[in-house]
């Protein structure tokens, strides 16, 4: 199959806003899947007693938004990403406050970088995640590694 490098002119491109209302049911399912049983992540009363506004979502819960964001990027025909070559290379988070049940999170994913090293290319997708008041809750940066697509 023909190997095509990623389109570097797309650095800076923004995608459609993704939105995620943080429901109790979703936080429960996520916490259960990662084996999180600490009361603040499982019980609203325990979380409130510990000083949080409501049941706390585990810190990596925002991956839900990254999945939605990366789906748009992967489907961007102009980018030329072959998903069968992609592995998750790096992940970075800067948390400003914990996410809690009742938050409505939005993010506008952006291509923050495209670079090559050896045979591989690196695609950085950045999502600044905001709450309903517009405050930044977390900044997430995912580096996807596109195996063997660099121009050599």
């Amino acid at each position: 199959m023909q190997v095509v490098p990623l389109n570097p002119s797309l650095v800076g491109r923004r995608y459609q806003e993704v939105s995620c209302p943080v429901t109790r049911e979703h936080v429960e399912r996520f916490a259960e899947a990662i084996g999180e049983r600490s009361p603040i992540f499982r019980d609203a009363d325990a979380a409130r007693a510990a000083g949080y506004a409501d049941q706390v979502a585990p810190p990596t819960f925002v991956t839900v938004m990254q999945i939605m964001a990366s789906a748009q990027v992967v489907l961007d025909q102009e980018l030329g990403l072959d998903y069968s070559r992609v592995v998750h290379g790096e992940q970075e988070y800067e948390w400003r406050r914990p996410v809690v049940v009742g938050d409505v999170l939005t993010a506008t994913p952006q291509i923050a970088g495209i670079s090559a090293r050896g045979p591989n290319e690196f695609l950085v997708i950045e999502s600044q995640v905001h709450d309903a008041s517009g405050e930044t809750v977390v900044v997430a940066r995912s580096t996807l590694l596109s195996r063997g697509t660099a121009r050599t």
Partner: protein
Amino acid sequence: MTVRFQDVSVGEEIPSLSKVVQREEVKAYADASGDQNPLHQDDAFARSVGFPGIIAHGMFTLAHLTKALTDWLGDPSALLQLKVQFRAVVFMDETLVAKGRIDELDPATRQARLSVWAEVERAGERVLPIKNSTALVRLG
């Protein structure tokens, strides 16, 4: 109850956190996160791309590492930053161990920088699915 700045020292390791990676959990993670890549669910597909069977999501491994940090800190708001590299895959039924070590302590901000990593033992060798990675935390 947050870990107190005066109670820790550079070089100290945080309590490690182990679990056996199970297929049902990885499936539950796919459904909860929305990442339905067949690499994490379909053995035939995983074999077609060169693995002996399905692998865990990188983010599944990272969620476990993050839990080691919040278990230690006792307060998720004390976790400020995490920057990780995924360097090896994790197979089903492997024992995943998350670890961290304090590298720097800043008395001015009461923050600590840690090296963090995840280990599995495979065919007698120690393999690091997450390595060269750091966390920044706020201590009490």
